């Protein structure tokens, strides 16, 4: 009994800094947001609060742009998350093998992550433009070329590619760190039992990486659901043409900052949060870990 309460006490002690800071600077704003989503708010100048009940939420039903944005975002998540996760894992496995020059490869692969987003945007403009690198390459090998920046159908694919390319190295680093934690003794024991490289990967490496993969996928989902910058830059904030690049966060931004309709924007945020939670829970079902005991 005493053991148990001491354990609980040390648990809270470990959590204290996190609870205080997250409480003040994240939970408080989030509570504020939840409360305001039930109001009509005018914060600028004469502050004006009017209780609106569920009106902000009912309004979502009539707002066709919400559903378009949701569909676009989900499509984006469904394509980007699996590809970037697998790419990151493959890169990490390759660079964890005992190969010559792996330190150099690691630095080179990480470059997209440290390059500022303004630079990335310009570089991609240069690669994607109609006379750009990509089209020249496609032309040379006899494939059709596209207006990668002007045509919304391909533009979204272009944004996906850029996102995968820039995010995969981040997750690669996390996988590399996780791979260090696998005790060598496990592999040695397997070798003695005559396991092949493939079997070792399938039966030792992958199960061991499960918790980290859960992290990588969850963060990937959250990050892609919050896609904003690229579609903002691409459509100049409108989400066009014909809502093709409209994402949920872009829509929230439009309501919160352009129309100053805080209450409605926050109601949308809550809906987004619920969707992400749902996606995370579904995912967690597949990654169920052994209980803590």
């Amino acid at each position: 009994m005493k053991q148990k309460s001491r354990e609980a006490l040390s648990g809270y002690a470990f959590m204290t800094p996190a609870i205080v800071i997250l409480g003040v600077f994240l939970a408080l704003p989030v509570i504020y947001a939840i409360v305001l989503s039930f109001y009509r708010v005018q914060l600028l100048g004469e502050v004006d609060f009017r209780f609106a009940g569920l009106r902000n939420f009912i309004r979502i039903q009539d707002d066709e742009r919400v559903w378009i944005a949701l569909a676009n975002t989900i499509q984006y998540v469904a394509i980007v998350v699996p590809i970037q996760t697998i790419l990151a894992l493959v890169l990490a496995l390759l660079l964890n093998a005992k190969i010559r020059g792996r330190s150099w490869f690691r630095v080179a692969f990480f470059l997209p992550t440290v390059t500022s987003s303004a630079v990335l945007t310009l570089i991609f403009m240069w690669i994607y433009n109609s006379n750009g690198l990509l089209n020249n390459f496609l032309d040379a090998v006899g494939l059709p070329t596209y207006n990668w920046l002007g045509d919304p159908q391909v533009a979204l694919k272009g944004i996906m590619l850029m996102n995968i390319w820039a995010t995969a190295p981040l997750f690669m680093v996390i996988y590399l760190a996780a791979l260090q934690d696998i005790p060598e003794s496990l592999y040695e024991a397997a070798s003695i039992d005559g396991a092949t490289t493939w079997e070792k990967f399938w039966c030792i490496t992958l199960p061991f990486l499960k918790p980290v993969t859960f992290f990588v996928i969850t963060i990937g989902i959250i990050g892609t659901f919050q896609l904003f910058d690229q579609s903002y830059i691409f459509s100049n904030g409108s989400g066009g043409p014909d809502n093709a690049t409209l994402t949920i966060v872009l829509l929230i931004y439009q309501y919160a900052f352009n129309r100053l309709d805080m209450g409605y924007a926050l109601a949308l945020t809550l809906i987004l949060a619920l969707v992400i939670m749902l996606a995370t829970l579904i995912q967690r079902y597949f990654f169920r870990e052994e209980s803590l005991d």
Partner: protein
Amino acid sequence: MRKLIPSAITISLLFFTVGCRSDSNSKPVEITLSGWQSNPNEGKLLDQVIREFETKNLNIKVKREVINSQYMDVIRTRLIGEVAPDVFYLEAFEAPALIKSGVLEPLNSYIKPEFKLNDFESSLLNAFKRNNSVYGIPKDFSTLALFYNQTALKSAGIAQPPKTWDELRQTAKKLTIDENKDGKIDQYGMGIVSELPRQTFMIKAFGGKLVDQTDYAAFDSPEGLQGLQLVIEQYRRDRTAAQATDVGANSNSEAFGQGRVAMTLDGNWAIPYLKETFPNLKFQTTEVPKINDRQGTMIYTVAYVMNRQSKQKAAAWKLIEFLTSESGMKAWAKQGVTLPSRRSVLAEMKYDRNPIYSPFVAGAKYGTLWQAGETLPTIVTSFDNQFVSAMLGQQPLPEAMKRAQNTANREIYLSK
């Protein structure tokens, strides 16, 4: 003796006030000025003007802050937090909503006759008025005019730039060239920016209007569509026009500078950029070609406004007064990015007689001010979203505009 007492009081009072004044002299007040800058040189120029102001007003110190991204988001956040700058830039487009919310100080009581308020172009000043109160002093303005590449026109055998929109389309056809006959066009006749801030005057060309009296969107009328249809036709049917992304440029001005488009409607701000960045480019400007036998263009203006919460209002006004006075404005307008908003300064600096700037000056008389009610942000988003789609041929223009107007008006209705 009886006379002595009051005079003693007077004298001591005088001492007291003098004492007060010298006290305030020793402690200068500090005011903050926030704005953006189009380039680093512009910032240096403004700093010079401010130093001049400080030497004339030793008890005022000015702190200048540059906010080049998400300017209005930052200003609004600071206004809500009541820590906003004393004086800041405000675009005409954002003015109605901000004035209505009551965060700006009305300036009427500060303005003295010597300031010569009527020297300002009235269309610019009106952008910052509400119920006869002035909330901002326009610091400068820009308009659109037709830029044309002289070399391209010459080699196509065109002597004169187009004067009407029909001529423009004919000229654009001659200027659209596929040099090496590979099926890819190397030079388009015209560069297009499809956004509402650049297209509003097209809506008005045949008598359409952007919003109605209640600030609902009203551009989806036969008259409004007629003007916009000209843009779509040139882009889709003639195929003599291109957007920046079509030709792999970062901006319309860059596409023109690179010679990918031979003509374009652009603002006076592009003049220093083109001269600096493309020294070999030979270009000239002329007024926007007449549509429906009428002149039209866009006008953009920015004002200095005062924060109602400012604790240094007298000093803040002194700064605004100095920056928008004839001499302050002259120093500022030297850069050639924007045009001075005072008629006297505009004339004195001979912008109206400079061939490259005069089309922009002329535009100020007949242009459409980029401003509408507080609902404009909703309308812009909706219009831009659907107009691009019509440009791409995803849907016919009438359908696109109908959708744009319906979406905007439903959102406006729901937010009321």
